């Protein structure tokens, strides 16, 4: 499958959807730069992509902690140089603190805000500035269906994804007219390390990260909001319209 993208950065590529996206983009002939905090994971992924494809498919890899927002722009500049340009930025770093009904873990919550929100803003801002000058390019932010409602199980995670939704919408309205595509990806449950703490049997419409990546790469040629898989769109439309007094009584 050719995606039309030549040079991509994937932030948060060492596992989950980011990893699957990196593999599939590399396979399609796109030059891929993978960014993650964990060096050994990056090496493992890079080696296995190399083993699967030819030498040209070798991804470039960069160790970077998305909490280190101040360096995001500089690293984007460096990677763009190494890739010889840039057409696609995917921000797929994310953490989900689990807050059982009786616990409040501020450290974990702030960490989630830092990764899901601050990191996304740092990278997507930098990409938007570059793409606006380029009059082209695609920014993909991995949000979640969780952002559509405040959920009792993970208030901060839901809120962080709601931030990402609104932020990317704003970005789209800002740079869309300059030819830049901004895609908000909203997956339902995907079988990734993110959901390791949950009972997978109870997750509705669970898909593999490979399936998710396929849907995302197919859907990201248009900007807008992309539910993954698409059937979440009507489902979440209904969920969004459930009145609060009903929603708070539901066990979701």
């Amino acid at each position: 499958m050719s995606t039309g993208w030549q040079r991509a950065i994937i932030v948060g590529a060492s596992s989950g959807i980011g990893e699957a996206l990196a593999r599939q983009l590399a396979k399609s002939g796109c030059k891929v730069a993978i960014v993650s905090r964990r060096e050994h994971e990056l090496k493992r992924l890079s080696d296995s992509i190399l083993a699967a494809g030819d030498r040209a498919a070798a991804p470039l890899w960069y160790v970077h902690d998305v909490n280190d927002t101040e360096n995001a722009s500089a690293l984007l500049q460096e990677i763009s140089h190494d890739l010889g340009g840039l057409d696609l930025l995917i921000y797929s770093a994310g953490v989900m603190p689990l807050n059982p009904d009786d616990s409040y873990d501020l450290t974990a919550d702030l960490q989630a805000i830092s990764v899901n929100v601050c990191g996304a803003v740092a990278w997507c801002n930098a990409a938007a500035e570059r793409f606006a000058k380029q009059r082209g390019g695609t920014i993909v932010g991995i949000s979640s269906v969780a952002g559509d409602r405040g959920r009792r199980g993970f208030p901060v995670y839901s809120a962080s994804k709601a931030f990402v939704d609104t932020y990317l919408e704003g970005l789209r309205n800002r740079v869309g007219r300059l030819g830049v595509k901004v895609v908000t990806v909203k997956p339902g449950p995907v079988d990734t390390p993110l959901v390791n703490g949950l009972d997978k049997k109870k997750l509705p419409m669970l898909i593999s990260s490979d399936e998710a990546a396929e849907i995302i790469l197919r859907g990201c040629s248009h900007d807008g909001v992309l539910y993954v898989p698409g059937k979440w769109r009507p489902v979440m439309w209904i969920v969004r319209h459930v009145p609060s007094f009903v929603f708070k009584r539901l066990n979701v």
Partner: protein
Amino acid sequence: MKSEDGFLLPSSRLEKVQSWGMNREALAYVYRPSTVDGIREALNDAHRAGRTVGIRGGGCSYGDASINSENVVLDITRMNRILRWDPQEGIIEIEPGVTLQRLWQYVIGDGWWPPVVSGTMFVTMGGAVGMNYHGKNNYKMGPIGEHVLEFDLLLADGTIVTCSREQRPDVFYAAIGGFGMLGCFTRLVMKMKRVYSGLLEVEAFATSTFTEIARVFEQRMAVDDYLVGWIDCLATSNGRGRGLVHAARYLKPGDDSSANQTLQIAYQDLPETLFGLVPKSIMWRFLKPFSNDTGMRLINWARYFMGSTVGNNKTTRQSHAAFAFLLDYVPNWKRVYLPGGLVQYQSFVPAEHAAACFDQQMEICSKYKVFPWLGVFKRHRTDNFLMTHAVDGYSLALDFPVRKRSADRLKQAICEMNRVVLESGGRFYFAKDSMLTPDDANAYLGQDVIARFRQIKRELDPDGLWQTDLSRRLFGNWNSDTAPNRALQEAR
């Protein structure tokens, strides 16, 4: 090269840089110095950030010759002072950002004209000399380099070396046509051509094949000062190679009784309207509906029809500017080629093989169903510059529209045409090129010439600071021991 101290180029300098053919574009850190010290600052920044520097003048190269993706682009257009002009001897000393327009306008009043001019006047003379451009009089006057007496070249380490035919002749003959790989010109001294009128005597006539047009050129070369052929590349196989020849001669002293007037800039100016009616600036919009093979076939046919009937064998007097700067007649005409832009394919073929080679090119075009919308035919001769593109023969420049659905076919066609040209002992021109491969460049320049150029490059620019997308495409990073990418290496 790698950043020394984490120094980053300011992202405010990031700009989109486009090829003239609009088929290549990239972001680059653009510096626009107006002084030599300004250039040095840019070099210093590039050095600290571990980036390379590509020089850009008017940006009139069709391909990637003035693009340096994600690295520094040194735009010299603000280095545009005229330093000295001797109207007795016709010798002018200029900075590299002076455009051809500024140059001819500066000298014409004193009865001089640039000896070699391109089809557009918006090139800078630095770029012109860097590419060693030619004109419609190449067979007579050679490339612009033959009229350069001396230049200053700013090297990668910031020092300046003065070169002429006597002083560092090796650098003189390599930097002219050296496509910005040895240094940045900071001063050029050139000799202009004496003219006795602002007018040329122009003759036009029709020809029907490549063989015929070449024969006409051979006959006229001795008498005419300029010769250019236009080829209808969309003609069907019966009419293949048909075209029009425009031949022009300088007037002798006394031929033009109102020379004082015709040598004024105002007299030379291109008309503001076409057919006395349509403002030129919007003309390209009228051409837009014809921007397909059928529309262009019609326009080419109409041009040939008019030229071969009412215009045939007519002699007229035309101003230098009107005859020379055909590309500037319809401003922004290249937008007709949007959205994909255009590729110009120009090959230079020795005279004995030219007609056959160009016939073959036309055949390849129809085989792959890619049709040039414009074809221009010129006569050339050899010169002494190291990286020369000229041959004792002819060139045919073909303008191909770039379209998504025909892009692969165009690539294949050009590949095949390259083979035919190389087999005929032909050459190519960096200012036009966007498709050559390293093997093609090796084949026409020859191993020895490339080795010699590399040797001079290593002496003047040991770190390979001067680079462009074109240079990387054809010659790699110059320094084979330069690491291409840290992460790539570590990943192995």
